[in-house]
């Protein structure tokens, strides 16, 4: 190799540079010492040659030249020059920003708000919509789904279910025997793992609680390629025959909550739905199971335990039932096999398995299997949050744009003010690049200030945002980790705006002739140009604000319309909680007896006026339905005969204060042995018994049974599962007349708070069964609020953005008008001197800003009309072009504009003609 290699030279330069930076004082000292030595040596030589000491010293200094210049050259040699310049720029920039604290504060705060809001919303969206399961090579994981027409063989299902776009239905649950058959030799797949997540009652270290449990097949951990952090995973040997492995793997969260991360947890016993299980392992921290990416079930158990955990005595185990579709299946495609090939093979296998195992009646069709992306689980969060998040993302995007416009406007205004300064600098010989670099430093410093604020805000919002989307009593939390890539991205956008508009003045300065802009008269040309672009920016701000304010208005009106809805029963002082007796301990009949006992004890509690219970809670996004066949009506497959219903306690109507319109409600005379009775609501009476008095009529609630139920009363309509759909037709059956009811929701009419009730309720329930937890304690109001969570979050966030937008627009309008007034000082002085009244001047200024605002509003309303249509499905009780909202939005903006212009207008009106004429 010839010469000094490039690499060795660069690395030497880097070392030398770092040394010079870090030991700057020493380097400077050595430089001085070296030149000093040089002078002394030259002087000594000259004295030696016969010169007098003074003369020698003089000549030596002349020969060397100015030490300052040499030192500058030496510093440049070491790459220190630009560092020094940058430092000087920074010092100057800091001084400039300190000198105008108003400008600095407004710019930095608006940047911080925009960066913070964007970081928070994008981080949330990333977690909710894009994050993958925390398993090795998550992108390879496939989920099995099926689609079928409306006559598909799956009649009895437990799991996700959707109407597919082309008619028919789609779902991702399968009967367990079908899964077992397919998993023996899955076509094109390495393995197929089955799982189901469910809520169960667990007693861990003596406390009974509700936990989320994943029942998984023996090859689940193998398929996901996940290894527990301590202990072992669930193995195929745990899953050989029903109930073979009484083992459980617990989540990292449960491990820290209950066992303080102690390794002693392994080997301990917990009770799950009355079954005793041994803890054998703890999952890794970020593993959430295959169902979702947000939160892990607390426990993972072999699916073979299913009969032990939930025994339906009359039906037999779900593991053996080929007509009950409930298991989710995931798998990985074999390497080298095309996904379409694997899907084709599995399709054939599914069809064969369904034909051989399930009861396929005449007219039933076989579902068609599909392999879909499984890296985000069943994606329920996508469905729930996609639209609201898109709205929020769009809105934060607008806020970002607004903040950029704001910063651009502020920087342009400042640049125009400093035109003279730039010209002076250039006239004194500063290079164009040098001036540009200095402006750049100022913009960057500003952006860094805003960035730090944004970082702080984004970090705080990260914890606040998920709180808006979850409710307090379910311990479900969305973990949003602070996302650096999102923050970096937002900051980069803001930075480039800052750089772009920070440099624009330098560009203009460079284009103007130095001499011409130093002359007073020439300034107006550049000002007019800057005035136009500034006004356009402010117009844009007003337009964006209009859009945001109208959007926020629509969501606020939706929320008020929904929450002021009269649901048909009295929601005040109504406390709800759930009791879910496990099937294994409370088989059919025993559960009814338990609830009867509990109902009695609840009603006897001090402070409780009424107590009742129902199979389904109201306004909780869940509902039950059942056949409703009036006597004489034949079951017809082509007609929908199912109606919404609920099983309720005998004093349900009096507790909830639902009016009985005709006949009677339930009484204590309605018992398990008395004739079967029902109450229907007005809507059902109108729908199924038009023009007939339904009281006394008989009906069947099960197409396969002949038990007739007599309608004894009609009650007023109530909302049922959601506030978004009006009261549906419903009928009510007394729970005491049911064979089995499983878990029920209790409703207590009481003036006590949930906090005061909690210990009483727990004692009452555990006085009967130590292992039975009281779960989901909340008031009916909280329940309704929870069902409006997304609407509330949207309304809160969008109005936050709306206020932010208004503030930014206000700043923008104020800035441009203050500037315009300052610029027209001369003209205003002349007007006043010629006899104009101060009020006229004030009106003139106000008129200017009003025109600007109106133009912005017109554009904004046009945009709003185009955009709000996209959110039509998210609105309630208000149209996308709601004139009230739009008018209100416009009025708010006009008011804000007038407010922002008031100070400059007053200043203009207060101008003293003489002073103004002397100005400049």
């Amino acid at each position, binding site marked *: *190799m*010839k*010469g*000094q*290699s490039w690499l*060795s*030279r660069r*690395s*030497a*330069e880097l*070392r*030398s*540079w770092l040394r010079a930076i870090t030991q700057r004082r020493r380097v400077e000292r*050595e430089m001085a*010492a*070296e*030149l000093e*030595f*040089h002078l*002394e*040596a*030259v002087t*000594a*030589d*000259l004295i030696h*040659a016969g010169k007098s000491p003074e003369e020698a010293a003089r*000549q030596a200094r002349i*020969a*060397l*030249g100015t030490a300052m*210049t*040499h030192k500058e*050259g*030496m510093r*440049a*040699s*070491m*790459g220190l020059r630009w560092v020094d310049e940058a430092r000087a720029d920074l010092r100057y920039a800091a001084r400039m920003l300190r000198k105008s604290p108003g400008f600095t504060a407004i710019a930095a705060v608006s940047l911080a708000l925009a960066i913070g809001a964007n970081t928070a919303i994008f981080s949330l969206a990333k977690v909710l919509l894009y994050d993958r399961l925390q398993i090795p090579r998550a992108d390879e994981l496939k989920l099995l789904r099926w689609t079928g027409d409306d006559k598909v063989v799956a009649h009895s299902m437990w799991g996700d279910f959707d109407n597919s776009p082309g008619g028919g239905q789609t779902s991702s649950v399968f009967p367990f025997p079908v899964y077992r058959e397919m998993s023996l030799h899955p076509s094109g797949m390495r393995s197929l793992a089955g799982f189901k997540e469910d809520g169960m009652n667990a007693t861990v270290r003596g406390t009974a609680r509700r936990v989320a449990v994943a029942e998984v097949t023996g090859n689940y951990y193998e398929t996901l390629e996940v290894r527990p952090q301590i202990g072992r995973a669930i193995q195929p040997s745990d899953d050989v025959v029903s109930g073979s492995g009484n083992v459980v793997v617990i989540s990292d969260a449960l491990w820290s909550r209950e066992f303080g991360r102690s390794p002693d947890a392994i080997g301990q016993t917990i009770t799950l739905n009355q079954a005793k299980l041994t803890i054998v392992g703890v999952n890794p921290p970020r593993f959430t199971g295959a169902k979702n990416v947000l939160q892990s079930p607390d426990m993972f158990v072999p699916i073979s335990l299913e009969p032990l955990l939930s025994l339906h005595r009359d039906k037999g185990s779900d593991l053996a039932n080929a007509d009950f579709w409930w298991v989710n299946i995931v798998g990985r495609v074999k390497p080298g096999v095309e996904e379409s090939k694997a899907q084709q093979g599995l399709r054939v296998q599914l069809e064969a398995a369904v034909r051989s195992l399930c009861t396929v009646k005449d007219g039933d069709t076989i579902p068609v299997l599909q392999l879909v992306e499984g890296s985000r689980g069943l994606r329920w969060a996508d469905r729930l949050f996609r639209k609201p998040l898109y709205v929020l993302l769009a809105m934060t995007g607008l806020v970002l744009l607004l903040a950029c416009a704001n910063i651009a406007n502020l920087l342009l205004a400042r640049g125009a003010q400093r035109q003279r300064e730039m010209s002076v600098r250039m006239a004194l010989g500063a290079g164009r690049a040098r001036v540009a670099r200095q402006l750049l430093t100022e913009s960057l410093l500003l952006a860094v200030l805003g960035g730090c604020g944004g970082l702080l805000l984004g970090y705080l919002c990260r914890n606040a945002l998920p709180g808006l989307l979850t409710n307090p009593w379910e311990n479900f939390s969305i973990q949003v980790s602070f996302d650096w890539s999102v923050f970096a991205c937002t900051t980069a956008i803001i930075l480039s705006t800052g750089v772009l508009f920070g440099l624009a003045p330098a560009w203009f300065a460079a284009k103007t002739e130095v001499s011409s802009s130093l002359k007073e008269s020439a300034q107006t040309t550049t000002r007019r140009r800057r005035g136009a672009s500034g006004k356009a920016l402010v117009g844009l701000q007003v337009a964006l604000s209009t859009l945001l304010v109208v959007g926020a208005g629509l969501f606020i009106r939706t929320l008020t319309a929904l929450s002021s809805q009269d649901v048909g029963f009295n929601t005040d002082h109504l406390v709800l909680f759930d009791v879910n007796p496990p099937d294994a301990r409370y088989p059919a009949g025993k559960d009814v007896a338990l609830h009867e006992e509990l109902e009695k004890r609840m009603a006897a509690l001090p402070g409780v006026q009424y107590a009742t219970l129902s199979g389904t809670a109201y306004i909780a996004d869940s509902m039950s339905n059942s056949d409703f066949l009036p006597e004489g009506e034949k079951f017809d497959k082509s007609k929908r005969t199912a109606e919404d219903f609920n099983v309720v306690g005998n004093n349900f109507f009096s507790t909830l204060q639902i009016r009985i319109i005709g006949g009677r409600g339930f009484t204590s005379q309605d018992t398990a042995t008395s004739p079967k009775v029902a109450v229907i609501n007005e809507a059902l009476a109108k729908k199924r018994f038009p023009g007939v008095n339904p009281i006394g009529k008989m009906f069947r609630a099960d197409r396969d049974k002949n038990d007739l139920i007599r309608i004894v009363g009609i009650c007023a309509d109530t909302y049922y599962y959601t506030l978004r759909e009006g009261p549906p037709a419903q009928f009510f059956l007394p729970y005491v007349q049911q064979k089995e009811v499983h878990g029920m929701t209790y409703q207590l009419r009481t003036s006590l708070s949930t906090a005061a009730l909690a210990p009483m309720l727990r004692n009452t329930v555990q006085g009967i069964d130590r292992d039975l937890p009281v779960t989901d304690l909340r008031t009916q109001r909280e329940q309704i609020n929870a069902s409006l969570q997304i609407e509330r979050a949207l309304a809160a966030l969008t109005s936050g953005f709306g206020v932010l937008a208004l503030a930014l627009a206000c700043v923008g309008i104020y800035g441009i008008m203050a500037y315009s007034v300052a610029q027209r000082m001369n003209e205003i002085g002349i007007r006043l001197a010629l006899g104009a009244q101060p009020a006229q001047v004030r009106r003139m200024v106000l008129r200017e800003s009003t025109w600007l605002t109106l133009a912005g509003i017109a554009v904004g309303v046009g945009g709003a009309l185009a955009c709000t249509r996209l959110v039509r499905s998210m609105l309630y009780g208000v149209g996308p072009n709601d004139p009230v909202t739009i008018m209100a939005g416009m009025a708010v903006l006009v008011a804000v504009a007038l407010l922002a212009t008031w100070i400059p207008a007053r200043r203009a009106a207060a101008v003293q003609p003489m002073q103004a004429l002397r100005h400049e």
Partner: protein
Amino acid sequence: MVAKPDDKQADLLQGTLDLLILKAVSLGPLHGYGVLLRIQQISGEELVIQQGSLYPALYRLEHQGAIASEWGDSENNRRAKYYRLTTAGRKRLEAETEKWNRMAGIIAGILRTTPESL
């Protein structure tokens, strides 16, 4: 002894100062003033280095790793900064010397050309 530039002395060709410093230092460690003296000495007082351009050049070469410095005692017991050639500097000196000689040969050949030799 410091010589003043006058017409008799040759001007330094652009870019040759680095090469001369490397050569001077290759003969043994020198302080800055020593480099100046040695170049004048070995050029037979024909070449004069601008004292102002010497130190930036020394710093540049040290920055690039071609020479290294160390503080030591001078002949009259003053602290002085001594420069010596590094391995990288030696390689660079060899390469530049070869390049210089080749260039000089080519130029000399061109200048020797007479109408007859074409």
